[in-house]
């Protein structure tokens, strides 16, 4: 038993059976953490949906990752590395090691995502896993990374739970969440649509939907709105007509669609088809709200998004230096502007690399320490902080609406307001985020 290492995946030298003449002995020093890079390179694992409904978002994330790797290794124009407030990245890889990467397919299933992440850790010796386009997957992979002792830099995940009840010491989220969406949207909605409103919620019947609905209802009710009804819709629904039809006579004058991806496109399309937006109820124009927008997905709804409010983590039309630099290098390389998923994954990669540089190690505990409480700027969302208590980034949130007169196929949303960070902040022990424990950082090995 002495030959077995207690925690996972260390390489030790070994004698082999007598049949082999002179086996090579390689005894590597006992590593202090999982997958400590040994050669001149370090491997990152990009785990994104490549099949299934979110494959296009996954493809965009992957583009951003490749761009980030290129910049880290000194290629391209450096992108956001030039605008990033921390200057420890020099284009010389990470800690002098060339950055390499492996990719995998999450299929937007927690099982497949974990299998893919495990293969990156076990087979390819990835020292950090990042990516994903749904909260279920993010939470599942975050749990795995915690157990295996590698860092997880979450991609697109919007559920409160990722940094709420399911938060993990090895996991970090740059993306915003349901609470922040609600906090940013509510004042804008109040200003545009007034105080006295009756909202009808259609909510995707799984955890992300529930947490977002809870957040939006709480935030709008605080502004004086009344929540008439909340109807849960099955994930597999493709035709939302039977959920939309009852809205007509419910007395509600606002419809909130707590849907994402294909669900969002279909429910919004149905709602517009049924002429909800042409109605006048209680003497007011009927309005539709989509709290979480994704530009890539919104395109699928075509004309129907025009004038509809929502929130988003980032948008390519922002004019700060960081955003401009990113859009320029991404656009030059690929010919179209990046999505918010691309932005968040690019930034996460840079943040990880920077944390390694500052702490001088790839050890998850060192990286984690460097990220906790880290304040930075120049990454597109204004001054940002990675909060130590729950590993959630706090930054400005964008309120957007579907553009009335788009000039190109990418020009789907327009930024209505940049809600300052102070307005979307919450305390780490907020009841919507309660119930979990961060635990301690796990270096594995």
């Amino acid at each position: 038993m002495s030959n077995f290492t207690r925690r996972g995946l260390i390489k030790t030298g070994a004698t082999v059976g007598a049949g082999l003449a002179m086996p090579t002995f390689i005894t590597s020093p006992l590593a202090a953490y999982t997958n400590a890079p040994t050669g001149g390179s370090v491997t990152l694992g990009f785990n994104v949906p490549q099949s299934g409904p979110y494959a296009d978002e996954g493809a965009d994330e992957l583009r951003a990752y490749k761009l980030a790797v290129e910049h880290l290794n000194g290629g391209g124009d450096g992108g956001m590395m030039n605008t990033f407030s921390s200057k420890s990245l020099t284009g010389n890889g990470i800690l002098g090691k060339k950055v390499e990467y492996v990719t995998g397919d999450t299929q937007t299933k927690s099982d497949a995502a974990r299998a893919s992440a495990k293969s990156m850790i076990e087979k390819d010796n990835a020292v950090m896993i990042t990516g994903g386009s749904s909260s279920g997957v993010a939470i599942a992979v975050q749990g795995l990374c915690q157990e295996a002792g590698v860092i997880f830099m979450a991609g697109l995940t919007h559920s409160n739970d990722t940094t709420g009840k399911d938060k993990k010491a090895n996991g970090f989220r740059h993306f915003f969440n349901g609470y922040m969406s609600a906090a940013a949207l509510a004042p804008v909605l109040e200003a545009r649509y007034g105080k006295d409103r009756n909202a009808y919620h259609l909510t995707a019947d799984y955890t992300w939907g529930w947490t977002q609905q809870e957040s939006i209802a709480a935030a709008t009710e605080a502004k004086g709105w009344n929540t008439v009804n909340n109807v849960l819709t099955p994930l597999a629904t493709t035709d939302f007509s039977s959920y939309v039809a009852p809205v007509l006579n419910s007395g509600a004058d606002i419809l909130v669609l707590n849907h994402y991806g294909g669900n969002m496109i279909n429910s919004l399309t149905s709602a517009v088809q049924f002429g909800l937006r042409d109605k006048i109820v209680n003497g007011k124009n009927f309005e539709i709200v989509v709290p979480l927008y994704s530009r890539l997905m919104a395109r699928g709804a075509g004309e129907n998004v025009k004038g509809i409010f929502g929130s988003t983590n980032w948008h390519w039309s922002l004019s700060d230096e960081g955003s401009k630099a990113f859009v320029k290098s991404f656009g030059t390389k690929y010919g179209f502007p990046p999505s918010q998923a691309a932005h968040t994954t690019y930034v996460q990669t840079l943040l990880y690399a920077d944390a390694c540089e500052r702490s001088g190690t790839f050890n998850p505990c060192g990286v984690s320490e460097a990220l906790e409480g880290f304040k930075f700027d120049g990454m597109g969302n204004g001054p940002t902080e990675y909060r130590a208590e729950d590993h959630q980034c706090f930054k400005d949130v964008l309120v957007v609406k579907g553009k009335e007169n788009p000039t190109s196929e990418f020009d789907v949303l327009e930024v209505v307001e940049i809600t300052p960070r102070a307005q979307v902040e919450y305390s780490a022990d907020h009841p919507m985020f309660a119930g979990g424990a961060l635990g301690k950082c796990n270096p594995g090995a």
Partner: protein
Amino acid sequence: MKTISKADMRTLFFVAIIALFAPLILNPFPTESGWAQFNAGYPDLMQRFAIYGILAIGFNILFGLTGYLSFGHAAFLGVGSYSAVWMFKLLSMNIIPALILSVIVAGLFSLLIGFISLRRSGIYFSILTLAFAQMSFALAYSVLTPLTNGETGLQITLNDPRIFAAENISGNLPVTSLFGLEMRDTWTMQLGAWDFQFNIGYYICAIFLLLAFYISIRIFRSPFGMMLRAIKTNQTRLNFTGINTRPYTLAAFVISGMYAGLAGGLMASMDPLAGAERMQWTASGEIVLMTILGGTGTLLGPVMGAGFIKYFENIFSKINDTVLHGWFSWMPDGLENVIVWILHLFTGKGWHLTLGIMFMMIVIFLPGGLMEGISRIGKWWKHRNAKNNNTSHTSSTPAE
């Protein structure tokens, strides 16, 4: 009394040898070489090979022998996983109680579903099982969230009760173990340019696979197995021979449900998470495909089918453009780009396409599945040898 015949013993022994040396066999390429991409000898995938092998063996007892095509078998896999994770949450991280409970719960669940569904046969039976499984999936994803943790999947957390476990002071999540042997313990042997990983979890799975395989051989060769095959060919005659077919099919259904429960429990033991997608119809369909692909009704086929599909899913999906460019960088630029462009349709995000084409190829050219391919090669080999022997007259008496 000998329990299995010599030929079966040989097959079992063959499987055992393969399982024992899988970490070597599945890692034929040096770690740093470009071909290492095709290595499958890492713990997670090897565990999956074994676990899905168990699942397919169990499914084959139902489908291969009786011909009843269950389209909802993934439900039992899911139920097994959930039971196991609950045991980890409530009792301790030892996998034994978890596996026992998952087999029992899956058995009871399949008894219930089987009892109702087996009132019909043929496609009506298939659709009944499909309906039950889809209901289980839908409910597990939404309303049963307190029990299943819905979309995210059921995970262990630091504040689970775990009444038999010592108090956790490390602040880290505990890991699954078998009386102190941790499932994730891996011993890596470096041999020249090769890295071979020997993982405890894998060997536990392999032992269960052998056990499952052994039991399946016994069932195949038993009077019970013969009755099941008789059900497939002529139920009327069997009824008029005094056999009540319902309990036989139900027993086969429950046995294969328990196999699925064991597979689900093992899956959770290797990686303590149980996701609802495990119960979706696509997952059930995958089990069916594994069995048909490998060779329905054969002993080894389903295991091979399982390995085949899991290999494509895990290996081909990871071959991205950069890897392809790496392979063909020796070519002139233009040609390299053309080749990479063609291949990238089939690898990485296109891995489904390759899988689809392979399905079609195999079913078109090898109607009996992979097993038919193997037996054809075997025949060809024998034929060739026989020819050689005849011409050279140097044949020695073959050893028994």
